[in-house]
């Protein structure tokens, strides 16, 4: 038996999102079972069935030097904007 990860596209053009998984003896059974489980209520535009063994997973990370600028939360735009306004002598009211 093979575990298939099921990805579901709800509407045309939308990204596929992980919907769940199922276990089947082969791709044909996975197809038949996934149709009934994920496609009988008009909830799917398309499905991707991917054998779990085909998925290459990455979980190890190295960020030893704490390079905050790489992160989306690294910058506080709000604080920097306030600084910039101050330097420019802006008179914008509010806090």
């Amino acid at each position, binding site marked *: 038996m093979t575990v298939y990860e099921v990805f579901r596209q709800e509407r045309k053009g939308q990204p596929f999102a992980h919907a769940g998984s199922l*276990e089947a*003896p082969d791709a*044909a*059974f996975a197809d*038949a*079972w996934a149709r*009934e489980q994920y496609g*009988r209520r008009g909830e799917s535009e398309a499905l991707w069935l991917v054998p779990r063994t085909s998925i290459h997973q990455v979980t190890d990370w190295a960020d030893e030097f704490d390079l905050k600028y790489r992160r989306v939360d690294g910058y506080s735009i709000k604080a920097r904007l306030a600084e910039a306004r101050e330097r420019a002598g802006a008179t914008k009211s509010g806090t």
Partner: protein
Amino acid sequence: MSGVGSTKPQAGDAGPVGASHHHSARATLLLSLADDELILGWRDSEWTGIAPTLEEDVAFSSIAQNEIGHARALYELAAAELDTDADALAFDRAPSEYRCAPLVELRLIDDWALTIARRYLYEEADRVRIEALKESDDTELAGLAAKIDREEVYHRLHAELWAARLRDEPRFTAAVDRLWPFALAVVDPPQREELARRVGRPSANLAQTSERGTHTSDLTALWEEMTEVRRSEPGAQW
């Protein structure tokens, strides 16, 4: 359009409605098709929660629900002709008045080999029947047959996968052998050689088939359960 001398069924009347032998050929055909789908849908839904795997459980229950949906559409066509409603036809007739083939009545719960053999044989028989109906001069019936067939494609996909996988399993082949005389009786005699060919049987000539119109004792218990709620409160609106 109802047959001469037919008893007009009353909607909500808890008693049995007109006997099928008084109906027109068209109404009798529609009831045969509808009863097959309703009773098989009922039988297959008995596996909900206990099918061999979770995935099969979901799929099998979904297919059973589809069959009951087909039954409803067919009963509605018959009801328009018989001046009644689908529920009255589905639930207010006596067991002897049902037109289903004995194949669908059999209580096969706890024997998956027989259950999946029935599903396979029924789908093959249904395909022979539906292909003929799609060519019917009755445009209403031909249209409904085509609509039903678009769902049956996936039922066949499911049934044929199982049949291909179990083809060499003695339990499955024994189950197919046992049910074959019942399966033949799902279709009309002129369609039987075609059914035999499709399922790879040498011939449709059998000394004994379980013909439509006769019933197994299994139907009575199923009918008792299926109509219990409706009979408990005659005329109630659900």
